[in-house]
C-alpha cells in the first residue's frame, strides 16, 4: 500500500509540470483552416458577371467550386450569409508589405538593397510571412499584394503574394516583375534639395545607363538563347528576361516629363510594361492609353505634385486615366497600412472614377495586369477562393468584414491590434488595484 502510494505520488509529481504547462498555455489560438465551405444566400458582387442576389458560393480545394442557387451543402461547413455581401478579395498592386516591419529601424527594412543594378534581388525571399502587419492587413479584405523592392535604377524583382501561408512559396501568387525606377526629373520629397541642374544631370546619366544595360541584356539574351557559355552574371541573367518578355517591366514613373520620357524610351523596345505610381498621369492620360500601357497608381490619398494643382488632383487621377481608356489598378504603396486600400478606392470612386470602376481597380484590373485574370479578381467558378464576406460595402468604414477566405482557407479575423483592444478596453486592474 505504502509502495503504491509512493508510486502514485511519484507519478503525480511527474505529471505536475505537464499540468502546469497546460495552465500556462492560457488562451486560444485560431489558425487558418482549410475545408469545404458553403457561403449561403448572399448578394454576390462578382465584379465580372454582375451582382447576383440570393446566391451561394461553394469553396472546395482552395477554389471557387460553384456559384449559384440550390447548391448541395453535402459535407460542407455552411456559413449563413443572408443579408450579407460576398466580394472577391482585394488586390493591392504595389506595397512593401512583408519587406518593411518598422520603417525607422533599419534592421527591419529589407526592400532596398545597395547598388543601382540589382534586378536579381527577389522580394519573395525577403517577405516575412510572419510580419505583424499581414494579419492587420487581412481583416480589411485585402487578400493579395504585390511586394515591391525599391532603391536604385533596377532594384529587384517584385512578387505577388497571398496573405496566407508560412513560407514564401506558400504565399506566392504567380506573378513576378522586374522593377525599374525610371530616372526621375522630379524631387523625391521635401528632403531632396538638389538644384534643378543637378537633377537634370543625374537624370540624363541614369537614362544613358539604362539604355546601355538594356542593350547588354539583349545581347546576353540572344547569346544565351544560342547556347553560348556566359560568365556568371546573375544581374544580367535576370534582367535579360525583361528584354525577351519573359518577365514584365514595372516602371515607376510619376511626373509628366518622365512619363513622356518613358514612353519614348520604350518606343524601340519590345517589352511587356506596366507603369507604376503615375502621379501626374491625368495630364497625359491619352498618351498612356494610346501606348496601351496599364497603370498601377497610388497612393490616392496624397498631396498634389505641384502647388498650382487643384487640391483633388491625386484623388481624381485614377478616374481620369480610366476614362481616357487606361487600364488602372490602385495601390497603397504602403507597408503597415495596406489595410487602407479599400478607402483609397472609395476616394477614387468619389472623385470621378465611380464605384464600379474603383472596384475593378482593386480586383480584376490588377489580376489582368499581372496576367492572372483566370485565377484572381472576381467571384467566378474555377478561380482561387480569395473571398470576403461583409455586412455592407467594404469601402465604407462602418462596414464589418466578417469572413476572409484566402486560397480557400478560412482566415482568423484577429491580429495584434484586435488583441490589444480586447485586453485594454476594460483594463484589469483599472485605475486602482483594489
Amino acid at each position, binding site marked *: 500500500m505504502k509502495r503504491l502510494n509512493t508510486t502514485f505520488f511519484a507519478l503525480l509529481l511527474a505529471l505536475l509540470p505537464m499540468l502546469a504547462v497546460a495552465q500556462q498555455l492560457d488562451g486560444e489560438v485560431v489558425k487558418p483552416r482549410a475545408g469545404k465551405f458553403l457561403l449561403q444566400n448572399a448578394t454576390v458582387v462578382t465584379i465580372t458577371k454582375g451582382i447576383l442576389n440570393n446566391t451561394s458560393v461553394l469553396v472546395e480545394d482552395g477554389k471557387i467550386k460553384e456559384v449559384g442557387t440550390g447548391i448541395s451543402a453535402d459535407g460542407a461547413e455552411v456559413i449563413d450569409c443572408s443579408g450579407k455581401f460576398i466580394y472577391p478579395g482585394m488586390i493591392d498592386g504595389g506595397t512593401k508589405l512583408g519587406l518593411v516591419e518598422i520603417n525607422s529601424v533599419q534592421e527591419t527594412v529589407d526592400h532596398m538593397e545597395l547598388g543601382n543594378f540589382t534586378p536579381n534581388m527577389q522580394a519573395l525571399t525577403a517577405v516575412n510571412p510572419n510580419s505583424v502587419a499581414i494579419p492587420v492587413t487581412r481583416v480589411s479584405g485585402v487578400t493579395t499584394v504585390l511586394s515591391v523592392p525599391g532603391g536604385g535604377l533596377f532594384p529587384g524583382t517584385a512578387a505577388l503574394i497571398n496573405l496566407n501561408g508560412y513560407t514564401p512559396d506558400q504565399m506566392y501568387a504567380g506573378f513576378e516583375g522586374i522593377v525599374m525606377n525610371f530616372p526621375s526629373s522630379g524631387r523625391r520629397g521635401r528632403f531632396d534639395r538638389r538644384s534643378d541642374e543637378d537633377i537634370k544631370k543625374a537624370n540624363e546619366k541614369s537614362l544613358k545607363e539604362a539604355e546601355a544595360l538594356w542593350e547588354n541584356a539583349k545581347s546576353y539574351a540572344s547569346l544565351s538563347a544560342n547556347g553560348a557559355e556566359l560568365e556568371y552574371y546573375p544581374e544580367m541573367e535576370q534582367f535579360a528576361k525583361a528584354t525577351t518578355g519573359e518577365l514584365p517591366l514595372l516602371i515607376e514613373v510619376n511626373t509628366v516629363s518622365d512619363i513622356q520620357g518613358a514612353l519614348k524610351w520604350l518606343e524601340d523596345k519590345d517589352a511587356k510594361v506596366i507603369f507604376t505610381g503615375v502621379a501626374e498621369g491625368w495630364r497625359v492620360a491619352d498618351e498612356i492609353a494610346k501606348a496601351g500601357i496599364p497603370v498601377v497608381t497610388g497612393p490616392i490619398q496624397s498631396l498634389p505634385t505641384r502647388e498650382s494643382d487643384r487640391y483633388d488632383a491625386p484623388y481624381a487621377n485614377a478616374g481620369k486615366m480610366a476614362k481616357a481608356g487606361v487600364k488602372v489598378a490602385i495601390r497603397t504603396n504602403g507597408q503597415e497600412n495596406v489595410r487602407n486600400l479599400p478607402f483609397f478606392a472609395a476616394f477614387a470612386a468619389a*472623385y470621378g472614377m465611380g464605384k464600379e470602376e474603383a472596384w475593378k481597380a482593386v480586383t480584376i484590373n490588377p489580376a489582368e495586369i499581372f496576367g492572372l485574370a483566370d485565377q484572381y479578381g472576381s467571384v467566378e467558378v474555377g478561380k482561387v477562393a480569395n473571398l470576403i464576406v461583409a455586412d455592407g460595402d467594404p469601402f465604407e*468604414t462602418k462596414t464589418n468584414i466578417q469572413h476572409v477566405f484566402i486560397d480557400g482557407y478560412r482566415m482568423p479575423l484577429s491580429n495584434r491590434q484586435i488583441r490589444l483592444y480586447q485586453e485594454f478596453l476594460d483594463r484589469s486592474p483599472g485605475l486602482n488595484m483594489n
Partner: protein
Amino acid sequence: MKKTTYFLAALLGLSIQFASAQVKKGSVLIKNATVLTITEGVLENSDVLVQDGTIKKVGQNLSAPNGVTTVDATGKYLMPGIIDAHSHLGLDVINEATSPIVAEVRMKDVVNPYDVGIYRALAGGVTISHAMHGSANVIGGQNATLKHRWGSTDPADIIMQDAPRTIKFALGENPTRVHGRGNGIQPRTRMGVEAILRNGFNEAVQYKKSWDEYNSASSQKNSSALPPVHNERLQILSDILEGKIIIHCHSYRADEIYMLINVARDFDITKLVFQHTNEGFKVAPEIAKYTMGASVFADWWAYKFEVYYSTAYNAAILTENGAITSINSDDAELIRHLYHEAAKTQRYGGMTDEQALAMITINPAKQLGISDKVGSIEEGKQADLVIFEGHPLSSYAVPQMTFVDGVKYFDIKEDADDQRLKVSPTEMVEPVTIADDHNDRCMQDTEHLFETTNSLFLLNQ
C-alpha cells in the same frame, strides 16, 4: 517736434497693425440641410442663419435678412468646421532644436499665411488648426491656433487671437535622439526626459519665488530691492505652473505618458493634453482622470519602434474609458480628410456617429480651450461651417463649401484650380514633388543633426 513726429508715426503704424487684425466676418443663410450639431443632435431639413460671423439662429423656415445670401443645402449635410489639434501648416520653421527646453520661442512669430496647404485643408472642411512647434525638445515652443482665413496675407489675420496659449512638449525617441544622440547632452533616455522636466519646473518655482519676493519687497516704502533678471524661458514655465498655458505633449509609449501624468500631478498641473499617444489605450483610465485627454492618429503605426505596439482601436478605448479624445493629422495630406480618419473609429471600435464626429470638432476644441467659441453648431458660436455631399463619415463624402466666421473660403464648384497667393520669382519652373511616406513635419529643421542619408528614415514623426 521731431520726437513727436516719430511718436505719431509709430502710433499710426500700430493702429494699422491693429486694423489689419480686424478679420472678415460674413453673413449667410444655409437652408434645408441635415444639420449635424454635434452637441444637440441631428436636425433634419434645418436652416442655419449666420450674421456677422456668428451663428444667430438654428431652426426651420428661417428667412434671410436683407442683403444676406442664401445657400441651398437640400440633400446635403452641414457640420461645424473641423478642428485639427496637431498640425504644422502655415509655419515657416518648426523646430528650434538647440536646447532640451526652448519654451521662449513662439510659433506666432513664424506664421506663413501663403502656405497653400491652408486652402487644401479648407477643401477638406478644416477651419482651425493647431500650428505646433516640433518634437525635438522636451519642452518645445509655444504653439499658435490658426483660423484658416485663406487669402489674408497678414499673419495676424490667420491667428485665432481669442484662443488660449498652448505649448509643445515631447517625450521619447525624438528629444532623446536630437539631444542625447545628436548633441551628446541630456536627455538620452526616458529617465533623462523626466529629469529635464522636473529640473525645469523646479527652476521655474524658484524663479517665481524670487519675483514674488521682489514684488512684495518693492511695494514697501523706500524699498531698495533690485528685480531679479528677467528670464523668458522660466517665465513661460512659471506661466504653465500657474495654469495659464495648456500643455500639448507629443508622446507614444504608456510609460512616458504615465511619467508626465505623475510630474504634472506633483506640480499641480491639470491643463495637459497628450498628442499622438499611440499607447494611450494602455493608460486610458489615468489619462481620463488626470488630463484633458488625448489627440491621436486614426491608424498610423509601425513607422518607428515606439509605435510598433499600437492599435487602431486606440481612440475607441480612450473614449470608452472616459478620456476626451480627438483625431489629428500632424500632416499636410492627412489634414485633408480628417472626417474620413474619424470615420475609421467606426471600423475600429464601433464608435457612434456622434462620438466619431466629436473627435474632430468639439473634442479638439476642448483640448485647445476654445469649445465655448467653436466645435459645434450652436447659437452664439463662431460660424465655422462645412457643407458635405454625403454623410461626412462616409468614405464617399465630398466637402462642398467651407466657411470661417461666416465667410466662404472654399467652394468646390466656383474655386479656381490654382490657389497660390504668390508665385516664387526665383523658380523658373514649378517644382514637382512626388509623395513620400508620412509627410509629417514634426522633426523638420533638425536634419543637420544627422549625418547619413539613411537617417532621413528617422526623421519622420
